């Protein structure tokens, strides 16, 4: 107890810097700040306002890193926001295990969430019998986007496997375009590796990675994935350093680059820019080669901090009702490029890419939880660091397998 006071003071000083207004209503801390994301958030804010709550927006421009740090400081200081964005999965559980999240079980039982949500999703927002977070929207990671115009100009067809992909890259480069809109940012590289591994080694290899089993790197599939990653690296343009994913999406929309490996939030970005993805639009969508029968998923949740005032708790419950409303699940997902978590909503209004994903998702074992859901922050970070290093200076696949697994084991 004695020691508790210092982190509190430090944290409240930080909190005082970050938020100055604290009126009645519900403060939502999030980092949905790109064009598609903020459109979706605006819809949710409107829904909350309609129910009579004031939406206090605390958008963190720096993404999950600073966002999570501010969240933890505010919680330690006893001044948590009303709701905070968090990736669905292990992060929510870890925070809940510290008794920092509240309980909205009554909303979930009243709203019959158990009937509406896939069991894995409901389980991932439940901690020791209490529902501690709202499942917001579901994303897929193993997407490949392409500029139709660039592919036509280079006279290549959308590739079906990785060999075709590399042959296409060569032709695209010869035609004067950037084959892959990639970035040196560590999370983008590590997700790309995950997608390649899933394509080469199938579902089981990916599940091994998601479980944090580092032996997967030295399997034939793991080694081949490093080779493919190094090949993609060769085609990267000079401007790839620290380039944001949305800037990569822009390269496709400007018909400067051919392919982008990115989750379906990129679709929200295409849509917000008036260049929707689909068989008729300027941007084509497909699952990355070799992953057409499963969907690597990750989800966004809004975690609900404990230790809030009664009126905030009431507002949290109304927020949960609003977010889980069937219309809202659809509207939000459409704006953001994602899919609704609710399985009981009409999906015929969704675009072609989403329809494709829904079909895959409905297959037995069609949904595979992604590393973003399963790997703890530290291990995920070490994995990203090691892969970014490989990207900067590709080594042999064998050496890469050793260094990546050593880095991850150190972080265990």
């Amino acid at each position, binding site marked *: 107890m004695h020691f508790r006071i210092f982190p509190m003071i430090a944290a409240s000083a930080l909190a005082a810097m970050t938020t100055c207004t604290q009126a009645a209503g519900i403060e939502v801390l999030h980092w949905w700040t790109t064009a598609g994301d903020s459109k979706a958030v605006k819809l949710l804010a409107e829904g909350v306002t309609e129910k009579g709550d004031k939406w206090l927006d605390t958008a963190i421009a720096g993404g999950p890193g600073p966002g999570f740090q501010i969240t*933890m400081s505010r919680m330690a200081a006893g001044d948590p926001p009303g709701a905070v964005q968090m990736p669905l999965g292990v992060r929510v559980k870890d925070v809940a295990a510290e008794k920092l999240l509240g309980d909205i079980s009554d909303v979930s039982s009243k709203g019959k969430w158990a009937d509406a949500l896939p069991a894995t999703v409901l389980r991932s927002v439940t901690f020791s019998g209490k529902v501690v977070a709202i499942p917001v929207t579901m994303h897929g990671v193993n997407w490949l986007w392409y500029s139709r115009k660039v592919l036509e100009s280079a006279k290549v067809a959308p590739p079906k496997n990785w060999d075709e992909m590399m042959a296409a890259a060569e032709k695209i480069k010869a035609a004067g375009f950037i084959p892959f809109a990639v970035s*040196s940012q560590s999370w983008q590289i590590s997700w790309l590796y995950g997608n390649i591994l899933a394509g080469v080694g199938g579902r089981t290899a990916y599940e091994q990675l998601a479980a944090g089993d580092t032996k997967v790197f030295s399997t034939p599939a793991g080694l081949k994935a490093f080779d493919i990653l190094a090949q993609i690296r060769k085609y990267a343009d*000079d401007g790839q350093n620290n380039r944001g994913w949305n800037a990569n999406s822009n390269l496709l929309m400007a018909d400067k680059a051919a392919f982008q490996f990115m989750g379906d939030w990129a679709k929200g970005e295409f849509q917000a820019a008036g260049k929707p993805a689909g068989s008729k639009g300027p941007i084509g969508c497909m699952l990355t080669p070799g992953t057409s029968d499963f969907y690597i998923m990750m989800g966004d949740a809004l975690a609900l901090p404990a230790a809030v005032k009664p009126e905030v708790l009431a507002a949290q419950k109304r927020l949960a009702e609003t977010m889980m409303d069937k219309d809202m699940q659809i509207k939000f997902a459409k704006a953001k490029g994602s899919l609704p978590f609710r399985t009981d909503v009409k999906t015929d209004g969704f675009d072609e890419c989403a329809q494709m994903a829904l079909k895959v998702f409905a297959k037995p074992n069609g949904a595979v939880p992604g590393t973003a859901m399963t790997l703890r922050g530290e291990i*995920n970070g070490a994995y990203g660091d090691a892969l*970014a290093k490989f990207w900067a200076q590709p080594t042999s696949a064998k050496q890469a397998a050793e260094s990546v697994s050593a880095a991850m084991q150190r972080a265990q």
Partner: protein
Amino acid sequence: MSRLFRRYGAAWMALSPSVLAAAVCFYGCIAWMVYISFTRSKLVPRYDWAGWVQYERLMDDERWHVAMGNLLVFGGALIVFTLALGFLLAIFLDQRIRIEGFLRTVYMYPLAMSFVVTGLAWQWILNPDFGVQKIVRDLGFPNFEFNWLGSERMSIFAILLAAVWHGSGLVMAILLAGLRNIDSDIWKATRVDGIPTWRVYLHIVVPMLLPVITTCVVLQALGALRAYDIVVAMTGGGPGFSSDLPGKFVIDYAGERANLGLAAAAAVEMLLTLVLLLVPSWIVKFRQNRAGTA
């Protein structure tokens, strides 16, 4: 005792809030952080003693070594370059030129910008696709290469470039104020003696400005140690983690990677580095005080 209280009581009462604030906020938090660095705290603080585990982990963490090595290069070069550039600018402005007020504002402007804006602007300037490299190539030098952001060896110098641009104005302002304080009689005397201007600066002005220069060195050293946002905005620590600095390492682990123990251990090592950097300036001050009383 009561006489002492009568004499200093009011002063103590006026000072006590700030003394208390300093004790709790600075030294209390430092003590807490040092303690946390000896625990296995992950997401939230834990208080079970774990010994040197976190320091041992830092010892064989390649990224930490890169970050500390970068700090030495970056910090040292930042001090040297901002001082050199700031001093030259200050001497230039001290020539009583006509548009001094305007130029002073121009040189100080970079400081008004946050590191995030500075970092983004320089990221664009250095971007090989549309920055300097592209411009020079378009001017008719198609083989011109300037891609520091993409080079593991040069990326930290790209950040240095932006930081020097950002910090030189402040050094200039501080040194200019120092130069203005130098008695004009000294200048007259040296002129009578026929001493060349450069020697006056080197052998008379610089020693007289030593306390001001020390201030600048400390300010820049702190800036280098604290650097975080400029790294995030410019390179994100990359390529790989070649442009990482300790500040970014600590924030990564204290935040998203949720390992408070390791972050605290790294922060303690940063603090020790700072103390080592400050010792020379303490010695300078100590000598001055002694010279003053002797």
